[in-house]
């Protein structure tokens, strides 16, 4: 009788890539649900189109680049969902489809596939759309206007007020619950926090990156406040725009963030600083996308310089 002979260990945990991705999809569902309630079935259809385009693109990549079927790891579903959540519901479906395909094929596939891409695919997809069709991305439907794109009155989000600079009219509670204009997935802080809490409790993401990111934004907007009410300015900065979605779901993307504990904190602080700088000095009111993409580029360097202290050595000692 012959038995299987392979290297130890001979037992494995039940965790796998597909389960992790499925949990991220679950964590995004409350946010998507609020988006659909606020902006209508159009938001749902846009998300479905984006996901479908991502999955088809992943399948093509599997056939042409990886030579194996990688659809089942579900990472393309996450990318498609995340991209849709960064878009206003009024974006034409074909625009979302192009963004998804670009994210999966050029950013991830040409980057070497899952885990090897330097840039967050969803955010890189959004950056591309911003370059070609900004007109669709900076017009936000107001809450309660559930018509099609033609009927929609493009309105300013709280973040636009803040660029004046002026404090927005919406209450904190409206912003917390998502009763404001904006992109599908950025309006409801409560849903985003609930999803992220689920991932943190499951041990899938660490609290380091979001805490460092949001903490930095809070400190900087408090110290360099542009509002009459310093605290209110800070709160609106945290609740407005895409910083919650970015800090909780984009900056925590495994492939494009550091693996060392210290590195994760540095990375989060970097994202926070760049976000505030872009918001304060940039052309557009929002800066999260470019802040995270820039920090993505630094990840390998951050990991290399924040390697854990070697076992048996003291702090700062090099052996």
């Amino acid at each position, binding site marked *: 009788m012959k038995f299987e002979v392979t290297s130890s260990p001979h037992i494995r*945990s039940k*965790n796998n890539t597909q389960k992790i991705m499925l949990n991220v999809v679950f964590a995004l569902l409350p946010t998507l649900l609020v988006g659909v309630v606020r902006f209508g079935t159009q938001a749902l259809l846009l998300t479905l189109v984006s996901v479908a385009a991502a999955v088809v693109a992943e399948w093509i990549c599997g056939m042409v680049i990886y030579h194996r079927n990688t659809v089942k790891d579900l990472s393309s579903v996450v990318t498609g969902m995340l991209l849709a959540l960064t878009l206003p519901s009024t974006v034409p479906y074909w625009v979302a489809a192009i963004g998804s395909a670009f994210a999966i094929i050029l950013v991830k596939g040409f980057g070497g596939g899952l885990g090897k891409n330097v840039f967050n695919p969803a955010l890189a997809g959004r950056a591309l759309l911003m370059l070609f069709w900004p007109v669709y991305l900076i017009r936000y439907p107001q809450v309660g206007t559930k018509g099609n794109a033609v009927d929609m009155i493009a309105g300013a989000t709280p973040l636009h007020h803040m660029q004046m600079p002026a404090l927005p009219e919406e209450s904190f509670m409206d912003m917390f619950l998502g009763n404001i204009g904006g992109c599908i997935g950025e309006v409801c802080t409560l849903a985003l926090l609930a999803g992220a809490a689920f991932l943190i409790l499951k041990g899938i993401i660490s609290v380091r990156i979001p805490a460092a990111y949001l903490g930095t934004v809070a400190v900087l907007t408090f110290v360099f406040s542009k509002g009459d009410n310093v605290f209110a300015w800070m709160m609106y900065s945290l609740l407005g725009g895409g910083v919650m979605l970015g800090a909780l779901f984009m900056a925590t993307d495994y492939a494009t963030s550091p693996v060392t504990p210290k590195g994760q904190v540095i990375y989060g602080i970097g994202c926070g600083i760049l976000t505030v700088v872009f918001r304060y000095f940039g052309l557009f009111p929002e800066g999260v996308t470019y802040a995270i993409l820039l920090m993505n580029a630094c990840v390998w360097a951050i990991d290399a310089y924040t390697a854990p202290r070697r076992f048996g050595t003291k702090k700062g000692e090099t052996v």
Partner: protein
Amino acid sequence: MKRLFFGGVHPADKKELSASVEVKMTKEPKQVTIPMTQHIGAPCEPLVAVGDTVKKGQKIGDGKGLCVPVHASVSGTVVAIEKRRHINGTDELCVIIENDYKDTEDTSMIAYDDYSNLSDDQIIEIIREAGIVGMGGATFATNVKAATSMERVKTLIANACECEPYITSDDMLLRMYPERVLEGMRIICQVLDPERVVLAIEDNKKEAIAALKKALVNEKKIELVVLPTRYPQGAEKQLVQAVTGSEIPGGELPKSVGAAVFNVATFAYTYGAVCLGRPVTRRMVTISGEAVNNPGNYWFRIGTSFEYAVEQAGGLKDNVWKVIAGGPMMGLAQQDLSACTIKGTSSILCLSEEQNGEAQEENPCIRCGACVKACPMKLQPLYLHAYGKKGNVDELKRLNVMDCIECGCCSYTCPAKLHLVETIREGKKRVKEEM
């Protein structure tokens, strides 16, 4: 619960499979195959020839340096001296003895009821003559460890962690013979004269802890330390960290931080050697896993074939997938049942197809960092894996690849099912070749 060492994982311990039944004595096999390699270091030279009659406990192989003698585990006739399959997968020189079932004892070793008058060197010599090695599986010469630790040990640690899943042989030994282990500790204490003496055990061994507490009632010197269960707490560096808080620097031994660690079974055999005049001729072996009919702990003579041993445990089930000498995290997979038990064989595991399901095909690394979190040596397995695949020795050295203790936590936890330890092991080999 507070973690006392870095990283680690907590797999289902599955100890109940073998710990819930009585330890069984088994009928001795017709033949025993005794490898000359049962320790770290050069193999023993056989001291007997084909046709010789040997007694149980008679020295049949010896050598120099790290080499520790081996003894006949049954009385009978030497029928062959040839290469046979070893648990490490290679063929090693073995002495094969036909059992005469008389168990005629060799009485050359003296039993000392009172060992207090023995000198340190005498005790160390007895330990060597009895063929005692690290019985937890490391099989390093106990006499050498004791002799080289003599002047530097502040903390003596008895390792009863048995942190690998399934294995319960140390647990059972402690339940049955706690006083033998403690007496063995007192003997080693006489040699090393440590300031602190600790028996470290994990909190999943309730019955053994109770037995030890009872045996320790009037004991002042030996301190029982119950640690929260977590793998690989029984690894030497991790146990020293958990008990003393000190980290052993890369490439160094426990004595560099004033500690010495011995497995509890090693102490029990030390007691047997000094007080009973018995060399190592048998050991308790856990036979467990989902693919064996009667899991449990069995006393086997050294040199019992795996085939005979598994038969005594009711034989294999049809769903058998892997047979492992040692634990599921660090043990050696066996191609067949032709190998024989050696001094360090704490268990024979028969794993079923069920576990195969979890070892899926390798997927790309998603950089989740689970391996970094799990590594008890604070390494970055994902990068060691990547550079190992590329054969980049400079980067492997920079990332301290030689610090890896091959505990398997990274591979266990990896959601992409990457064979991290395997690649890192190859990387270590490359680095060694360059040095």
